[in-house]
């Protein structure tokens, strides 16, 4: 996760901290691990995040982040 807009990034990071607790629940769904990343080269559209070294998401909001995580957890491992 990286940020072009500092305050927005902080809000998403707060959300992530909560998610880390959730993802350890172990209910059979796919586990999501979060790692901070310094920069993804997407500063004009921050905050940004990358899934599995490939898929990029930009202008991440708390709501879009939650939707993304829901989607990711549903995919069969």
């Amino acid at each position: 996760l990286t940020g072009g807009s500092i305050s927005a990034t902080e809000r998403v990071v707060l959300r992530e901290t909560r998610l880390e607790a959730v993802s350890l629940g172990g209910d059979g769904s796919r586990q999501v691990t979060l790692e901070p990343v310094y920069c993804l080269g997407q500063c004009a559209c921050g905050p940004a995040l990358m899934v599995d070294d490939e898929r990029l998401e930009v202008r991440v909001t708390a709501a879009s982040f939650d939707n993304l995580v829901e989607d990711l957890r549903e995919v069969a491992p």
Partner: protein
Amino acid sequence: MSLTLYIPRDSTALALGADRVAAAVAAEAAKRGVDLHLVRNGSRGMFWLEPLLEVATPTGRVAFGPVAVADVAGLFDADFGAGHPLCHGATEAIPYLQKQQRVTFARIGVTDPLSLDDYLAHEGYAGLRQALALDGAGIVAEVIQSGLRGRGGAGFPAGIKWKTVLGTPAAQKYVVCNADEGDSGTFSDRMVMEDDPYMLIEGMTIAALAVAASHGYIYVRAEYPHAIRALKQAIATAEEAGYLGADILGSGRGFTLEVRKAAGAYICGEETAMLESLEGKRGIVRAKPPLPAVVGLFGQPTVINNVISFASVPLILGRGATFYRDYGVGRSRGTLPFQLAGNIKHGGLVETAFGLTLRELLYDFGGGSLSGRPIRAVQMGGPLGAYLPESRFDTPLDYEAFAAIGAVLGHGGIVAIDDTVDMARQARYAMEFCAIESCGKCTPCRIGSSRGVEVIDRILTGRERTQNITLLRDLCDTMVQGSLCAMGGMTPYPVLSALNHFPEDFGVVMTAQAA
């Protein structure tokens, strides 16, 4: 009916849904029996309009954006006409683009990045052909003449560096591209690598011919998978076509190139730490001298430049040094691809000659803040660059004018910040960043940054504020004077500029009033 459309493959466009739009366009064309020629070009750098779809017309390309999957059928219904609400008219007449001087970025957004034919049809490899007609000294003279200075941040004349490598005898020399782009607010290197990789390859090949180097490395951030893929594919294609390899275009001179993934540490963007990392060691800064131009990679003379520096070279050789030199002001010649980021309405890539003001960039191009609040400060030149208040926004963008106000242009990245941000917390973050990212080799940076965070914390909690501000200034002086590299040596820039320009955020004004 035949239809030519352009949808970018740049990673920002992909993040905003370009692949989904491209798939929807292809499906819609098939459904309607339209003979579609779909080009996946680079990005024009107007990121608030991505995914930007362009249609080829007899009078040039016309732009639509930002296009969502749901817009695709409607665009076909409207026959991609000017009446569609997403239409911006002729792409090159969009003011954001029209007001720029796209010199290095001339092809970016126009061509298919991985098509060598496209590259050749747009002046590609014209510079290399000129270079092959010259000897090393002739190429170096041309680069010196152009006035090109290193675009990574330090602004050292590129040709002088090359001359040193040329003049240092060795059986093996190297050309290394520092593509560990990690400054906040920057993405121009990424765009070159993803959207015009042959330009970087050509620039490095010309450097190799200039100094008689036989092998080169591109040290790319591991977090740039799209750039890595584009470079690897372009290198393979260039090799097949004889633009790289043992015998470049039948000249008898050879140059080979490989991509290396960076180690994921900010310090590895410092050139000597990068060399250590390339050698397979931990990224720790080397003391200079000796300069890398004399004792560089594996102890051999090495040309090290940033992506934009190398990318500027093909045109300098192709059109001549004077063409490039005629852009710019004072000792800042040519153009700089500025990058507008942070809290800005129209974030993106703006290439212009040096000499424009910061205010013109922020308002004429950027359109002001995204939040609609006043832009209170900008940070220019990455995490080690100074914070500039509104009173400095009329400073012309050139290396010397910025040095004169205690700031740096760096790699041209601009992060806009509105009036809701606490600048004292930004100053603390700068120190914390240094504490986290310091390689630890020298004391002022390793210890100074940790003590710096503590001192700022005392200031922010109001403990002996005046004495601690004096202590902070003292500490910053030690870091500037005593650090081995820019990491510790420049961390005081954001810290002190925040303190000097925004003392009220540090509680200084309140204290004065209370007393």
